């Protein structure tokens, strides 16, 4: 039973190894440095508890041989008292050993989490976006959890199992080398068997993983698409398909379990053979008078205690390997070079007037392909610049450069004449505000989310910002008003409402430069009007860059920048550009205008 469970644990993990195990282990150990006292204390206690474990059967053997057989009752009682003391000391040693080791490793983990978070904070957007946030997230969470599993559970067990193993082996050889060899004779066989079975089991469990993946995927898809399934009368076919996958998973599980079910008994048979060997050899030697009966009894106890640590160590070894692989990935992340850093002599950017210049700016996510090529523009303080162009033209990239999310490859961006690279990122960004297309809300109350724009804002200031953003009305109507929890990604609010909160946040931040990516998703009419007027308030008096989707925005902009394939192809006011009859006119007509003649008759 125990062995079967262990094999299952081994097999359910995909085999993975760190590329450089010793290096990773060394780095992990180095992280323990601040807590070396706890670790040393724990290791000292391991020695104590391991020797207590070795001492136990020895004392039992002694009691039987010397005192029971010798009919010495006081001696027996003294030995029993010593045995009891051994167990009590062992208990305390174990308790403090586990406790101090776990304390050290949990602190190590907290440190590791902290470094990871610090790193994530400092990472470039370019890196994060290329990895997909969800992917990076689940990897980080799983990897740290894998390390946690190892250090909090397996490490201590593994260390004490190793010590126990050594202790028992020493005790056995001290008692009688012949019986010791007999006890150990099955160990190589056990290793071979474990290797054989884990190979089989791993293959079998791989299949259970893929089949349960199929079942869940099918389930998830069909549940989220259930309305379509019912609309298209597909339910019977779906049920049949699901049942097939479900059956495949069942069969895979049953056959994988056959392997693990066979492993436990096989190991037990080997362990019993070892016991029988000791009994037979011990009996023979006892008859010859070479060993005492007590020694044989003690050996039978040793043999039974011997196989538990072996099982533990081999089981933990697999966990250790995946923990190392996980740690290696975490370290890799920690070692990722930061490409955007404040220059050593960076100065704080003084209060921005609002003049923004792009001077021959080029940028690419990789060196081979430039997304922006030689872009130049000059925005006067207070102007609204609308960016227009087909999807993928480079609009989002251009504003990402302005906030210095990305670093220009060549050319320069200047604000009030200061090159962005010469000022600190913090002083730059604290004067900017941003409203993204899909407004991001943090878990917490609406109040918290608006206050994000200015952390020390009073409640009155937050409400004032919400009023200016036209958000006050709907917030007041919510049952809990400003204290309404918005939950993960603001799920319970409509898209339009989230947009209003994001605008209020930007209003409160009172930025000198505003960046706005207009929402494209359909928002109901009333909210749309509210958003529009809130934005007009927000744009007033600030230099603003707007990725425009609304006709009114482009018409009101001071400059319209038409970007195509990374270049500014047209630049000017709405009316002028329309008159040029170029790309802008074409985009405008396609996006905002449907010739009435075509409507309805087009086929």
């Amino acid at each position, binding site marked *: 039973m125990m062995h079967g469970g262990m094999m299952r644990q081994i097999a359910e993990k995909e085999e993975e190894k760190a590329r450089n195990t010793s290096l990773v282990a060394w780095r992990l150990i180095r992280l323990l440095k601040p807590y070396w006292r706890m670790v040393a204390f724990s290791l000292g206690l391991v020695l104590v508890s391991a020797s207590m474990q070795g001492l136990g059967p020895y004392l039992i053997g002694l009691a039987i041989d010397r005192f029971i057989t010798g009919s010495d009752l006081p001696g027996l009682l003294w030995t029993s008292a010593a045995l009891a003391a051994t*167990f009590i000391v062992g208990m305390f040693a174990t308790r403090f050993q586990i406790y101090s080791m776990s304390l050290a490793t949990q*602190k190590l983990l907290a440190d590791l989490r902290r470094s990871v978070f610090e790193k994530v904070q400092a990472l470039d957007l370019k890196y994060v976006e290329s990895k997909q946030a969800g992917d990076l997230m689940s990897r980080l969470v799983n990897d740290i959890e894998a390390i946690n599993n190892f250090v909090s559970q397996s490490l201590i067990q593994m260390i004490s199992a190793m010590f126990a193993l050594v202790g028992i082996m020493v005790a056995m050889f001290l008692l009688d080398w012949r019986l010791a060899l007999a006890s150990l004779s099955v160990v190589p066989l056990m290793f071979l068997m474990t290797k054989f079975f884990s190979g089989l089991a791993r293959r079998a469990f791989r299949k259970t993983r893929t089949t349960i993946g199929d079942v869940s995927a099918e389930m998830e898809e069909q549940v*989220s698409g259930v309305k379509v399934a019912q609309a298209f009368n597909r339910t019977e076919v779906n049920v049949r398909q699901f049942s097939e996958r479900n059956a495949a998973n069942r069969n895979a599980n049953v056959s994988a379990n056959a392997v693990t079910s066979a492993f436990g008994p096989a190991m037990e048979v080997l362990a019993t053979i070892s016991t029988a060997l000791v009994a037979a050899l011990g009996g*023979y030697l006892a008859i010859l008078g070479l060993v005492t009966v007590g020694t044989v009894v003690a050996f039978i106890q040793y043999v039974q205690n011997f196989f538990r640590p072996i099982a533990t160590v081999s089981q933990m070894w697999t966990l250790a390997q995946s923990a190392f692989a996980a740690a290696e990935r975490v370290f890799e992340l920690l070692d990722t070079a930061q490409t955007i850093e404040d220059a050593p002599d960076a100065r704080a950017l003084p209060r921005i007037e609002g003049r923004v210049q792009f001077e021959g700016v080029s940028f690419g996510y990789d060196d081979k392909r430039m997304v922006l090529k030689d872009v130049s523009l000059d925005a006067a303080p207070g102007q609204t610049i609308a960016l227009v162009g087909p999807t993928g033209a480079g609009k989002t990239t251009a504003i990402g450069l302005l906030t210095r999310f990305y670093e220009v490859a060549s050319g320069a961006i200047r604000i009030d004449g200061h090159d962005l690279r010469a000022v600190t990122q913090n002083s730059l960004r604290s004067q900017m505000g941003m409203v993204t297309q899909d407004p991001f809300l943090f878990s917490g109350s609406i109040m918290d989310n608006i206050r*994000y724009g200015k952390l020390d804002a009073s409640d009155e200031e937050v409400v004032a910002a919400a009023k200016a953003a036209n958000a006050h009305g709907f917030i007041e109507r919510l049952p809990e008003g400003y204290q309404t929890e918005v939950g993960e990604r603001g799920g319970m609010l409509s898209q339009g409402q989230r947009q209003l909160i994001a605008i209020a946040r930007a209003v409160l931040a009172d930025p000198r430069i505003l960046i706005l990516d207009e929402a494209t998703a359909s928002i109901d009419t009333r909210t749309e009007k509210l958003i529009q007027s809130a934005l007009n308030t927000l744009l007033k008096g600030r230099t603003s860059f707007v990725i425009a989707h609304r006709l009114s925005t482009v018409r009101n902009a001071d400059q319209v920048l038409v970007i195509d394939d990374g270049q500014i192809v047209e630049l000017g006011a709405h009316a002028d550009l329309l008159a040029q009859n170029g790309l802008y006119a074409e985009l405008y007509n*396609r996006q905002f205008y449907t010739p009435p003649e075509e409507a309805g008759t087009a086929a």
Partner: protein
Amino acid sequence: MTGLRRMFVYLARYWAPSLGAFLSLLVVNAGNLVSPRLLGQLIDDGIVPLQMAVVWQVALWLVLIAVGRGVFNFLQGYLAEAASQGVAFELRNEIFTKLQTLSFSYHDRSQTGKLMTRMTSDVELVRSFIGNGLIQLISAIILLIGTLVILFSMNWALTIILLLMFPAIGYIFVLFVKNIMPMSKEVQQKLGVLNTVLQENLAGMRIVKAFARETYESERFYGRNLELLDANIKLIRLFATFFPLIFMISNLGVVAVLAFGGWQVIEATLTLGQLVAFIGYLNYLLMPIFMLGMLGAMLSRAEASAQRLFEVLDAESEVHDRPGALELPPVNGRVEFENVSFRYIGAESDVVSELSFNAEPGQTIAILGQTGAGKSSIINLIPRFYDVTGGAVKIDGHDVREVTLDSLRRQIGIVLQETTLFSGSIRENIAYGRPDATLDEVIAAAKAAQAHDFISEQPDGYETVVGERGVGLSGGQKQRIAIARALLLDPRILIMDDSTSAVDAETEYKIQQALDELMQGRTSFVIAQRISTVRSADKILVLEQGKLVAEGTHHELMQTSELYVEILETQFDDHAEIVAAVEEG
């Protein structure tokens, strides 16, 4: 325990492997109980009197018993797994079937994530409890009783001394189990909170950076991190205290047996071998106690899971075929709403109230209104995704509640606002409503839906796999596949929610063409977002708060309905001026 008791129905379907597993376990236990005795015999009859023959004999028996025990152990594990996986299989199948047939109002109220948990962890918990836990439970009890009987028969005085430690172990164990649950829950919860902060920082990185809030976020994270550390330390203290304590007490039991039993051996009321066997049996006392404790903790969780599973399995679908429902004959496409009222379950007011209108075969009906005016509700009532709460929806004179769902929905094509594609090839997706359609039919539908060109450009053409694990398609492409899917059904009645997501102008134009093709010659209901749709509709229904406030063609409504003009101006923002210009000119 009603939930678990009902689960026996499922286990009963696998009675043969269950019984086999149980019997095997009995044999294994018997083998376990014999072994310490053999060891005692080895000492008493073999080693002490120096009888080598007995030593050999016993050693051989030990191995033989181990082999036999091994075989039955394997059988037990295998059969229990077969039975429990069978139970899981049936449960999953039934839940899936149930979910497929439950009506829209159920799915409106449930979350996919929660349903997935039912399907995976709840099923797994019930499975392992029913399949393994239960058998282990019975076996543990038998093992416990068997061991006690043997011990009493060997030496009652020693047994009573042993039993003295039981209350202590039991008490500590109960205390442990009681504490561990809330503590590990706290750790999980703190970990969840911490991960949320990390997740939000990754997902909202632009905002964090744009507002220069790195320090603030770090402090937030560190605070949570420390909370997690504290919760972890509490949990560790619990583990570090309880386990060594329990092992110490059981070891002290060994000491007591050794001292007292040793004295008995000296007094010659006990043999040495019996003493050794006695100590050997101690393991078999502790193991079942641990197991009972574990199973007790597992029991309450399994019961909770079982009840959650039955919540799904017992859910009633509000919409189902009436007894004796007739097949809806092939329809012409006349749709009537007679005084229809509708409200969602649990809602306080009607979404649609006393609505009446007719659609003649082949007409296009555009539905307009503000968000929440009841547009989607109306189109959902036609294929009977929901039942009306008052009045009736009739197709060719048949009340939709009088006919079978199958025959009704087969004649209605639907293009929903959110385009759901399923993992599988493009061909399978188009043939979703008619899995038996030929490739030619699929291609014809795709061509009509303006989808053929981009499909042909895909690496494997119509066999290209799409969906979660396949090629990603753009919103506009997905929408055209959905249109092809509806076209292939060749329905008499068509329902469409044409709210557009952001697509570029050229795609927009193609979708428009596809839709026009689709509507040709069918009774169509469209939640309109495009000016062209509204202009060419045979009838426009203008809704306000669930009521029909105006009805007519575009030209009529331009003259008579202020609300209509207002909606056009606001919802159709960009087109409004054009429309106005056209009207004036």
